[in-house]
């Protein structure tokens, strides 16, 4: 850090430790978003399932040639910890309607940095369902956009129809690196403003990097999307009991609470929370390993419906290794 940056520090409002933000996507938009939030002291929950490729490097500036082939989550976390001492939680996965809440998690604000049209609506709806703010961004060649809502309408659905013509995504359309960087930093600025209590939302910012034009387009008040925003009914709360030998894979917890309606979903939610742990329980084809026993409310799931065993609210899922050693 240069002396000039240290002087600037005095004017950067610190949110260290106070706020947790989910950043969906660790690519061209997610990189600058994560940098700006980490620098402001926000705890990050990064969600992504991609690996670093050579073609990413011109616009994904957290990564270097040494990161090629690594999961983006790992490479981003290492860079953010090294540069800013950031608190970073990594969640491996791609957002869809079935895993939305599990992947986004319990955060104060969610940012869609995937530049994927479907993910924008999922993040938008999560914010409406939880009453929490979201920021959504997009970039295509020299054009960019930033939108935010504060947990209520006007929302992203007030602007765009989900079943519209196919929108070219960032990866497909080609993106100029600094354009993604600029949009990403503006997204982070909106997020920090929202976390600091700013409630001036309900407008879309459009950016044209070639014509050097930025526009603020205000939406009319009102939004009737909130009542239908939740993609499914709330799921059962499941308590997963972790044996001592597996706790190192789940941040030393003895119980992990997840939401699911069956055993398979509970294990997926566990994996989303603590990436890597499922491979200790299930083999490559997804079946429970022979030396692992799983009990749903004290019943061995092999004598029930195995991974499809339904779970009721408050159910206890106990994981018991049959033999010790040799599997981690």
């Amino acid at each position, binding site marked *: 850090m240069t*002396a000039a940056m240290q002087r600037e520090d005095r004017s950067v409002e610190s949110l260290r430790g106070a706020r947790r933000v989910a950043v969906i996507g660790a690519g061209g938009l997610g990189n600058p978003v994560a940098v700006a939030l980490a620098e402001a002291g926000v705890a990050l929950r990064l969600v992504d399932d991609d690996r670093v490729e050579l073609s990413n490097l011109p616009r994904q500036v957290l990564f270097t040639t040494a990161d090629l082939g690594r999961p983006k989550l790992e490479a981003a976390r290492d860079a953010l910890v090294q540069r800013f001492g950031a608190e970073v939680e990594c969640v491996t996965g791609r957002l869809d309607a079935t895993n939305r809440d599990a992947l986004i998690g319990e955060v104060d604000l969610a940012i869609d940095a995937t530049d994927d049209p479907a993910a924008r609506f999922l993040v938008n709806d999560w914010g409406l369902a939880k009453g929490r703010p979201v920021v959504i961004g997009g970039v295509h060649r020299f054009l960019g956009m930033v939108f935010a809502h504060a947990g209520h309408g006007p929302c992203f659905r007030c602007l765009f129809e989900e079943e519209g013509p196919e929108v070219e995504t960032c990866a497909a359309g080609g993106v100029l690196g600094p354009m993604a960087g600029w949009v990403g930093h503006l997204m982070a600025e909106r997020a920090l403003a929202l976390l600091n209590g700013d409630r001036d939302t309900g407008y879309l910012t459009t950016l044209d990097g070639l014509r050097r034009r930025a526009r603020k387009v205000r939406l009319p008040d009102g939004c009737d999307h909130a009542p239908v925003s939740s993609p499914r009914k709330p799921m059962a709360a499941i308590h997963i009991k972790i044996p001592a030998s597996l706790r190192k894979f789940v941040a030393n917890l003895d119980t992990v609470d997840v939401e699911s309606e069956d055993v398979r979903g509970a294990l997926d939610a566990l994996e989303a929370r603590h990436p890597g742990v499922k491979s200790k329980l299930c083999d490559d084809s997804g079946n429970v390993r022979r030396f692992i026993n799983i009990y749903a409310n004290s019943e061995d799931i092999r004598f029930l419906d195995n991974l499809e065993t339904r779970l009721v609210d408050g159910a206890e899922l106990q994981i018991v290794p049959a033999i010790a050693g040799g599997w981690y």
Partner: protein
Amino acid sequence: MAGAARVIGCGRAAEECATYLAAAGVGRLVLEAPLREALEGRLAELNPDVRVVDGALDAIDVLPESATSRADGARAALDALVVLCGATSPGPWRWT
């Protein structure tokens, strides 16, 4: 990419600007000494083809001194790339 850019300043805007110019492949960068010291290693890892040089007669100046945020820095890098690619003769930014 042929061409060179001189990044003015040593703050966050300058750091972000230089980072995006290097990643985009601007071949030669002129940086002020403190920023060069802090950033040269990372820029080499980011894009081994970029050279940080003491000076370049053909370098365009990038970044107004008033710029302080990383957003300003990325936008200045964008403006510089537009100029270096000869895409247009950019006028001032308009916010409406």
